[in-house]
């Protein structure tokens, strides 16, 4: 792997230096933006020695995610680690700094007709490191999987002052434990990913999105089931309620000559008025639809993700509709990835004592589903519970893992599941 940028490399995007003033109400005393992996490791080692708590940040598009930190002294921005380290279009592999924004990376890839087939909320702005840390994904995971499935290697800075690598620049590799995937979704609590290698894929030659209004959630779910069991093999398939109205969206990809016909087939499986968007408009429709799923605190908005097995999504939506009436919550937005089994709500809590009402809502949701994550909520409201849900039965193994990698709890202390 080359380390110096060449004609295909070089930095992508710019540093805009927007660092958060605080995280969940805690204000750091220091901001740093290291320029190299080794500098990140030095900062961490220094923090470990001095007993400081460090929060790594990328673009800040998911800063609301996690429990309020136990402590916060230093915010470490990955903004200067944004170069394309290596990109071999014929090998379908890419190595990029953690601070690179996904939108900029996609631009570089698109010049060679390639992409990372992921569509996380506010993904264009999000950084590669942030996406690995949070593990947040979008509707395309139905067919293409998540960043976890594309991750083939990482370089990571540790509180011990070392930089380690795992995996490599080949798409198949079973040399040792699969550390890259363990870092994925670990919220930066094991180390700070400084660069990552991915398998990339050819851009779909054409795409179309078919949308249709639905008279009820039952009708929307039924239509989604018809599409899912058809030959269409959708790239994404979501049922949604926005401004009180139910609708369905299906994204189709394939050859230019094929996609039009597939869209017609999809329309035939839907009931009532349909609309079709193609090309860039199709992609833009999904960006717009998922923006409200971002783990960003806006006013008193609460964002919750509920995950169930795919077969249970219809029943879950029905239960949520009933719960909404019983609990007097105002769900402004509901987005459900039907084949995935994931439902994201953006809601407001009416009346007095919203913190305890949120805790009660969460308890009620946990009776409907095993996995309930409060992705964003006002900081004060999050203090009464673990936003990640019930601790798993393997929490002791996880604590041990944390202890092996970050024994003095430098990285994001308290923010992860089980307040790791």
């Amino acid at each position, binding site marked *: 792997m080359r380390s110096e940028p060449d004609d295909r490399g070089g930095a992508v995007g710019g540093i805009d230096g927007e660092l958060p003033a605080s995280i969940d109400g805690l204000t750091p005393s220091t901001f740093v933006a290291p320029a190299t992996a080794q500098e990140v490791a030095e900062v961490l080692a220094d923090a470990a020695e001095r007993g400081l708590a460090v929060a790594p940040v990328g673009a800040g598009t998911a800063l609301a995610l996690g429990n309020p930190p136990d402590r916060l002294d230093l915010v470490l921005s990955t903004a200067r680690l944004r170069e394309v380290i290596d990109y071999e279009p014929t*090998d379908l592999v890419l190595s990029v700094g953690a601070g690179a924004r996904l939108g900029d990376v996609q631009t570089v890839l698109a010049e060679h007709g390639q992409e990372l087939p992921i569509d996380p909320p506010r993904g264009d702005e999000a950084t590669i490191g942030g996406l690995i840390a949070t593990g947040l994904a979008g509707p395309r995971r139905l067919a293409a999987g998540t960043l976890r499935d594309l991750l083939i290697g990482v370089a990571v800075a540790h509180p011990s002052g070392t930089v380690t690598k795992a995996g*490599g*620049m080949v*798409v198949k590799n079973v040399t040792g434990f699969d*550390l890259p995937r363990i870092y994925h979704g670990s919220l930066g609590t094991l180390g700070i990913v400084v660069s990552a290698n991915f398998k990339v894929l050819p851009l779909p030659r054409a795409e179309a999105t078919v949308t249709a209004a639905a008279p009820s959630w039952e009708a929307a779910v039924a239509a989604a089931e018809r599409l899912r069991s058809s030959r269409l093999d959708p790239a994404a398939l979501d049922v949604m309620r926005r401004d009180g109205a139910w609708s369905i969206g299906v994204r189709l990809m394939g*050859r230019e000559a094929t996609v039009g016909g*597939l869209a017609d087939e999809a329309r035939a499986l839907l009931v009532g008025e349909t609309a079709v968007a193609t090309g860039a408009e199709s992609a833009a429709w999904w960006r717009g639809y998922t923006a409200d799923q971002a783990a960003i605190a806006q006013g008193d908005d609460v964002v919750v993700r509920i995950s169930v*097995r795919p077969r249970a999504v219809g029943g879950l939506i029905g239960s949520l509709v009933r719960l909404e009436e019983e609990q007097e919550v105002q769900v402004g937005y509901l987005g459900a990835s039907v084949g995935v089994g994931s439902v994201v709500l953006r809601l407001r809590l009416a009346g007095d004592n919203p913190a305890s009402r949120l805790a009660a809502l969460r308890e009620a949701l946990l009776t409907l589903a095993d996995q309930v994550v409060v992705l964003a909520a006002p900081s004060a409201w999050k203090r009464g519970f673990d936003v990640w849900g019930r601790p798993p039965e393997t929490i002791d193994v996880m604590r041990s893992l944390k202890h092996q990698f970050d024994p003095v709890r430098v990285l994001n202390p308290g923010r992860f599941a089980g307040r790791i």
Partner: protein
Amino acid sequence: MNRTSLVERLEGILGPGGVFHRPSDLLVYEYDGSVDGAVDTALPAAVTLPTTTEQVAAIVRLAHEAGLPVTARGAGTGLSGGAVAQQGGIIVSLTRMDRIVEIDRADRTALVEPGVINLELSETTLPQGYFFAPDPSSQRACTIGGNVAENSGGPHCLKYGVTTNHVLGLEVVLPDGRIVWTGGHADGGPGYDLTAAMVGSEGMLGIVTKALVRLTPAPEATLVLLAAFGDVDAASHATSRVIGAGIVPAALELMDALTIQAVEPAYHAGYPLDAGAVLLIEIDGVVEDVRALGEEIAAICREAGATEVRSATAQAERDLLWKGRKMALAAMGRLAPNYYLHDTVVPRSKLPATLHRVDEISRHFDLPIANVFHAGDGNLHPLMLFDRRRAGDVERVLEASKEILHYCVEVGGALSGEHGIGTEKRDYVTLVYSADDLAAMAGIKNSFDPAGCFNPEKLFPKGYMCGEVRALRAQAMAQKLGIYAF
């Protein structure tokens, strides 16, 4: 604990039919599928054949109490020594846990016990329109549990990904005997991705007693193309052209002249005997796309110098074209008494240069090497042909392997694409990983198995897990900071 009381206690858990302890019964467990001489062999003290998760947990608790090593084993088809009980102790053979517990068409999942044979799962689900995508060449014999342990691949992982992309959750017996679940039907579970840690961990972190795996809908249409080329270079070049055109086939396999000469007379798959190399390219998807892409790929191959391009859509014709590829290893017996099947990966663009190097190594060591491999993802399988009764042959094979491995790493490749490290390649791990990199991996091992009893002496360089690991950087740092919480 002496051997007699160990066997007595194991029989107390499993009944007399569930424990092998006579030397003659243990002999077959001394090996896995590797060539004699390429990996060490070792005899276990006892082989256990549990039928339930609770029995596995009881065996592990007993081993934990007695401080005995535990090695899990599936069908024993592995090629890196992973299922060999390097330090003796107890082998937990999972072949009697072979039930498909549940197939859920709505969720597109199957819940299986670890002893289920890979191909059996797909054969069971195909009539319902689904299949289990990982398809290692040993799929007629290998178990899903083994696939999880080694993160197995196969020809179709070019499009569909390897085992880790298809495992949603695992029931695991941890080294202390506890039964836990990682992952599950619903995604988004809290905490670290322990399922990711388990897949490919070579039995060093826990024993999988159930796997929840993803089922993939069978494609509407499938097309197999056979393209013959004058030499391996032209075939590699065509591979890059196909990928460069923005096409990711379901599978893209390359066979060289030596392989063709071994398989064609034996299986009559229809490979031209005078070809220097053939590509087997499979594409699948909706019927319109498959037809058009087939024509596109055929045109690319002809432009890249293919002397012949044939295509097959009917199942029987496709199976025949695949038969030569799938039976390639079996056919090698026509060329030499023994073969050593290597597994390395290089970036796809480095394939032509790597194949040249393999050819040089073949000539230097006077060792015929056949190449049959997953060209689409750069996963090489040089097959070294030899006769182990002939003095010096095994040594030459091992020397040649070493040269190949060194070269692959030099050009940015990996030590193994799908076979695992085990004991076969553990001493090469330092070619790709530094002491710090290995310390991070040891951190994973220590979190799951602090006593180091699960499948000892695998993956880490010889001697590494015996003491050095205790000086892990995390511990070193904790001591530096005056913390002794370990």
